[in-house]
């Protein structure tokens, strides 16, 4: 068997240098995806006329098309229609693409989470004189957040891994770096296993964070 364990350990420090970029892409895209997803969910849940139909088309399109195709559409396709988009750098394009795609997934998760909050909660808010906005901010959204976290966590883990697609736009991130080192050393297995382990470790750390958050948010609901 031809496996160079020593070499694999040596590449970790180099790979880890690219970890911040992966994290930035994932976290920034997640923040935008949450913001857009929440707006979409509120629109579809409350059946806002016109916007609700548009939101459904948006959600349908971005859930049904491959992420890679979406990234290519944005980075290579848009500048053809709108020349000003050629100023868009690859990293920004990747973040935009990943934000949009994941916002469509989160919109569905959030809609279900909002739906799982008993309508009586909203009625109780209105009955003591709160406005609908106050009710959502103080009572409905906090309860929906707790319901949305497990599924949103899945989406985030998916997003972390999808950042590796940015390499196809030419972003020098974790996976791209691994690929370059592999072509230079021809030690493919060692490099790609090391890359896989970095993603795995990232997911483990995130899962611990999520577990802590879930516990904290569940406090009011424990007997």
């Amino acid at each position: 068997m031809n496996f160079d364990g020593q070499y694999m350990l040596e590449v970790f420090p180099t790979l880890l240098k690219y970890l911040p970029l992966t994290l930035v892409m994932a976290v920034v895209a997640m923040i935008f995806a949450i913001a857009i997803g929440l707006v979409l969910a509120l629109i579809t849940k409350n059946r806002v006329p016109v916007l609700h139909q548009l939101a459904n088309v948006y959600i349908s399109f971005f859930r049904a098309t491959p992420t890679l195709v979406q990234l290519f559409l944005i980075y290579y396709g848009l500048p053809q229609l709108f020349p000003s988009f050629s100023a868009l750098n690859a990293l920004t394009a990747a973040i935009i693409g990943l934000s949009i795609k994941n916002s469509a997934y989160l919109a569905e998760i959030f809609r279900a989470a909002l739906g799982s909050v008993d309508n009586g909660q909203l009625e109780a808010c209105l009955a003591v004189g709160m406005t609908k906005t106050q009710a959502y901010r103080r009572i409905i959204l906090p309860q929906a957040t707790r319901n949305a976290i497990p599924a949103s966590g899945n989406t985030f883990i998916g997003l972390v891994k999808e950042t590796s697609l940015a390499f196809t736009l030419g972003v020098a991130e974790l996976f791209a770096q691994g690929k370059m080192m592999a072509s230079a050393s021809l030690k493919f297995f060692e490099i790609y296993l090391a890359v896989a382990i970095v993603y795995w470790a990232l997911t483990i750390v995130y899962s611990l964070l999520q577990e802590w958050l879930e516990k904290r948010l569940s406090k009011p609901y424990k007997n």
Partner: protein
Amino acid sequence: MIHVTNLRKQFKDLVVLDGIDIEVKQGEVVAIIGPSGSGKSTLLRCLNLLESPDAGRIEIGQAALDAQKYSRKEAHQLRQQTAMVFQNYNLFKNRTALQNITESLIITKKMKQSEADKIGLALLEQVGLAHKADSYPITLSGGQQQRVAIARALAVEPHAILLDEPTSALDPELVAEVLQVIKSIAEKRTTMLIVTHEMAFARQVADRIIFMADGKIVEQGTPEEIYDRPQNQRTQRFLQQITAPVTFIS
């Protein structure tokens, strides 16, 4: 105080409220009774626009609106005149007993936390639950939750409290503690509209009984008039049915 004229509500083909007129004076306790499906709960829920009535006029305290055309602001104003106690409590699940009461004070009345807490604790004391101030709803019994809900309704100092079958979801042994609390606030001359199936209780606390059937007010009067000398046949039949001993066919 409360003045409702010709209130109408229809769900598709079903007429639920068929021209209701009600007048409730300050400090009056009115119980609404009637068979299920008679529109009692819908009537109550139309008064704070949890259901939107199709037609009619509603005046409560300082607010008044025409059901056919009202603005969001008018709706909000009308809702602020009353507070509601629900059949299944609807306490805010993510808030403690105390926070359930102070929430509206802080959010809608812009009260300081410390000030709101003081009022909240006094109200919890009044319903006998001061020791549960920091408990979350899930840890409370149904009776305790409903008592917190009553305290929450009192907190906003509404012109009237609307109680929608406040004991119907409770285990039988918990009904008394909730009725006791309602009775104590009735004695303070709080204006109340109570939809209830507790006939004996209604007789005891209400100044006036309204009997509803098929979306109409069939008969109203003092408890003695309605229970002892009902004039209308439907009222007579309803009271007979619910007071008749339950018979089982073996």
